């Protein structure tokens, strides 16, 4: 009962944080206080938050390291480009409607492929599982990088590796291999990003507080013990993996609809790692922390811009120092003691000081 209450409190904190951030940022953006540099970050921050929340479902709640989240994002982004291209071609141009359909399609495609991938991936454990997700991420990006896709009145035209598409006069290329998606009519907005963050939080908290969520966490803490009480570990881990992939796809769709052109190589290994950094810094299984860490880390390189060429160097040092400080036993103990009552803290400091 106490646990239930605690997780409800956690989710309330998350929701209020997101809503507060949205209201403050909207007002600032409306009043022109943000400037172009930071305004252009609003939608990407939402994308990264959604992708990170999804990844946290897998890494934090289910306990399986995934190094291929960017692969799912690229699936979502390119699905969105194709769907939006088809819709635009047939005269549907209302941004909200196009975006909604794109995000739904991106989520479904990424979720479906995530489910297909989970079949081989979840047969493995630990670092072997991690490298297979890395491999799938690379494979997806490598394949999309060779896709050529165009649309004309006869429908979609597809070719692979070499561009051999011949189209009618009114045809339009949607994806051109290494050049990536081109000529996208952008449809994303901060409001849409905010709603997507809110929906993904609702989904994730709903699962975390359900019977399935408790089973997923039980498998993470001790798979064998969980199996002995009748939990189907593979089924539960599959659920977490698919949700994670689907949220990655949704984030990718939002991301894809925010830029008029982008290449598949945008979603390389570095992006997967970046999102993993957000998750780990925010705290495994802690969605509020993920939101804060993502926002800070996306903004940090912009704030450090005055350092010019040294900015990414400082960023790297900040990353290392944060990891060392937050994992320092003495500091951790102090923090823990602060939360406990005084009597216990005196005891703890004595034995470990």
């Amino acid at each position, binding site marked *: 009962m106490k646990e239930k209450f605690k997780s409800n409190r956690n989710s309330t904190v998350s929701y209020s944080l997101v809503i507060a951030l949205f209201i403050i940022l909207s007002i600032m953006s409306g009043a022109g206080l943000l400037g172009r540099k930071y305004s252009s970050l609003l939608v990407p921050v939402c994308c990264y938050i959604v992708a990170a929340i999804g990844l946290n479902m897998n*890494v934090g709640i289910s306990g399986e*390291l995934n190094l291929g989240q960017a692969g799912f994002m690229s699936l979502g982004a390119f699905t969105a480009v194709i769907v939006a291209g088809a819709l635009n071609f047939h005269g549907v141009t209302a941004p909200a409607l196009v975006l909604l359909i794109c995000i739904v399609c991106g989520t479904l495609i990424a979720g479906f492929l995530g489910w297909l991938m989970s079949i*081989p991936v979840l*047969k*493995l*454990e630990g*670092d*072997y599982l*991690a*490298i*297979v997700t*890395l*491999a*799938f991420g*690379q*494979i997806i990006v*490598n*394949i999309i*990088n*060779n896709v050529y896709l165009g649309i004309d009145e006869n429908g979609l035209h597809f070719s692979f*590796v070499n561009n051999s598409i011949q189209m009618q006069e009114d045809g339009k290329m949607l994806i051109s291999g290494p050049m990536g998606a081109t000529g996208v009519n952008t449809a994303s907005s901060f409001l849409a990003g905010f709603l997507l963050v809110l929906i993904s939080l609702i989904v994730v908290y709903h699962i975390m507080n359900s019977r399935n969520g408790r089973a997923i966490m039980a498998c993470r803490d001790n*798979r*064998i013990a969980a199996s002995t009480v009748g939990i189907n570990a593979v089924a539960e881990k599959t659920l977490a993996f698919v949700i994670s992939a689907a949220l990655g796809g949704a984030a990718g769709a939002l991301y894809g609809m925010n830029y008029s052109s982008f290449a598949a190589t945008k979603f390389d*290994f*570095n992006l997967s*790692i970046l999102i*993993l*950094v957000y998750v*780990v*810094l925010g705290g*495994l299984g802690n969605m509020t922390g993920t939101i804060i860490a993502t926002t800070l880390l996306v903004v940090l390189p912009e704030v450090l811009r005055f350092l010019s*060429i*040294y900015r*990414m*160097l400082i*960023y*790297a*040092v900040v*990353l*290392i120092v944060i*990891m*060392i400080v*937050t*994992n*320092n*036993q003495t500091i951790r103990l102090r923090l823990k003691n602060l939360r406990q009552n005084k009597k216990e803290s005196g005891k703890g400091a004595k034995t470990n000081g």
Partner: protein
Amino acid sequence: MQFLSYLISGLGLGSVYAIMALGYSMVYGIAKMLNFAHGDIIMVGAYVAFFAISGAGMPPAVAILLSVLVCTVLGVVIERLAYKPLREASSLAVLITAIGVSHFLENGALILWGADSKFFPSNIFPQGGPTIGSLTISWLTIITIAVCCVIMILLMLFVGRTNTGRAMRACSEDKGAATLMGINVNAIISLTFAIGSGLAAIAAVLLGSTYPSISPTLGAMPGIKAFTAAVLGGIGSIPGAFLGGLLLGVIENLSKAYISQQLSDAIVFGVLVVILLIKPAGLLGRKVSEKV
């Protein structure tokens, strides 16, 4: 004949991967961490060798030694400063720190040496090579394969026969018990990083001679490939890393030659997935079953 020539150049490329994977795998075996900065140490090694030869005009042998020395020291310093404080932390925290180190080295190189790629000197190894029938094998390929075999045998003898090697294996099994037996675990971990980084420098020289254009992001892809090779062979196993590296190089080269230049990465990683499905702990890895 054509096939044989692709196969041999694949073995050459695979030997470079194998040397990198050996370093990766040893560090993993002892420190139980995925050292994502390994690729960037290779990059530093390549730059040191480049400046020693093209800048300072040193003879290649001295330049290689210098590069090995710099990388070894760099590896030990990184371990002391960044990884040692995290000995008790979760493996994910160490992973993120390694990523931080990787960013640090990459951007440090960018500031020091600029973003434009430099041309790695081609006079380190003799040009040309022996011809058998219609098949010409370059000296570089022969030397690469030979160096890789020698390193693998030396490492196996070192780990298998010497006292220090025994201490290493003890640390990789159980650090607590190793400490109780009087082994200085911290020294062993430092030594492992030293060996791994030294090997990275050798790989850097061979890689630079094979693909002469070097830039600050040079290490990223080879780092991932070394990781892949180490896992393919069974991470933590020395002959496994050797086998995994060779296999990866051959598959990559043959798929580039016969299937598709652009899709070679997808094919390499596809093979990795298939092999791990058949042998979940890699080709020569040990499957450790969890005790209840």
